[in-house]
């Protein structure tokens, strides 16, 4: 009886430890996602807290074999890394931050960099006339960091909307794949799966 109780306690402890470490492994990823949320929809970061637990729970409580879990985990994580690379590029290409001297970090959603298809005609003319080479200088030229200005003076509204939407979709997809990948990985290394493997 005592031996059985000790075994159950050990088993429970192992499961608890496993779950704790699996969930804690999400923290570095979460803090990364918090720092690069799409500026057009910053409230999305609030969804991350609940989202992490929901996705993790969904994956973790499924019962495929350890091999299946590991396969799915590697696919999800590889996909997340690929999407994160695309997101990182697009994030810097389609957003702009205030001048460094102001020590402010909130980025603003704009269109597709200095691409001619995305810029308004007047912005193209001003950029050429004054040799403005960066998005930040264009923002300054039009006073777009101000109260009464908006980025649609510089970028075509549809391109700002498209860039913002792309960022949100990519952000969600990357986040989903990343958390799912870690969930599947935790599932693969679950104590019950190890027992099955033996």
């Amino acid at each position: 009886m005592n031996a059985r109780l000790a075994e159950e306690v050990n088993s429970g402890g192992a499961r608890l430890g496993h779950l704790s470490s699996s969930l804690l492994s999400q923290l570095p990823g979460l803090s990364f996602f918090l720092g690069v949320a799409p500026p057009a929809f910053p409230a999305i970061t609030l969804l991350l807290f609940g989202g992490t637990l929901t996705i993790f729970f969904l994956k973790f409580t499924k019962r495929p074999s350890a091999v299946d879990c590991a396969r799915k985990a590697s696919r999800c994580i590889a996909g997340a890394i690929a999407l994160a690379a695309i997101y990182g590029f697009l994030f810097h290409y389609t957003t702009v931050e205030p001048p460094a001297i102001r020590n402010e970090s909130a980025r603003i959603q704009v269109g597709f960099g200095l691409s001619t298809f995305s810029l308004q005609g007047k912005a193209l003319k001003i950029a050429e006339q004054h040799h403005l080479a960066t998005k930040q200088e264009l923002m300054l030229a039009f006073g777009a960091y101000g109260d009464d200005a908006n980025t649609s003076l510089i970028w075509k509204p549809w391109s700002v909307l498209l860039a913002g939407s792309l960022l949100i979709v990519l952000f969600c997809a990357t986040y989903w794949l990343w958390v799912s990948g870690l969930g599947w990985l935790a599932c693969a290394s679950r104590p019950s799966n190890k027992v099955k493997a033996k």
Partner: protein
Amino acid sequence: MLASESSTLSRLARAMSALLIVLPQPAASFAGPSAKSLSDISPAAVGADLQSRGIDLSNGRGPQSLRDAMIAYSFVAGNGANLSANNGEILSTILKLNAAFGQTALESHVSVQTGTTGARIHYQLIGRDDTRQMNELTNRAEDDISIGLYYVWAERNGHPTSPKDAVFRIIQARTTLQLEEHKP
């Protein structure tokens, strides 16, 4: 087995929720009070913090919405002693002030000087067509304007007395410009 794991997971979820509160928060909006002032939220401290960021609310300067919210907050909070009171009025003014911080733009307090006093200062963003002028003449001409690239020139008797195509980069929280005038 599944029920046991679910129960453990729900306990862990509660612990994680508490833990996540202490995670780094997303970047703050541009002009809210800085972290160092969070321990002191009396109206005087908030005003001083805004001034250090280039937002001067004295003498009717600064964005109207923020001025209104600051006046309401100062009225309710007094010298800060009332802040401990837990009433809806204080909470309401704090929420309005907080909302006004979010709407505040990045501004610079600009002072313009000329060799001789009495010139009217005009300025215009290089990408826009609307021209504005400062209320006071030099050398008391100053204004809070959005950061940007500006044409700034002086006029006397309606005639420009400094180059109208001189571009100034106004980015810092406080900027002083010295204009060289020629005879009109």
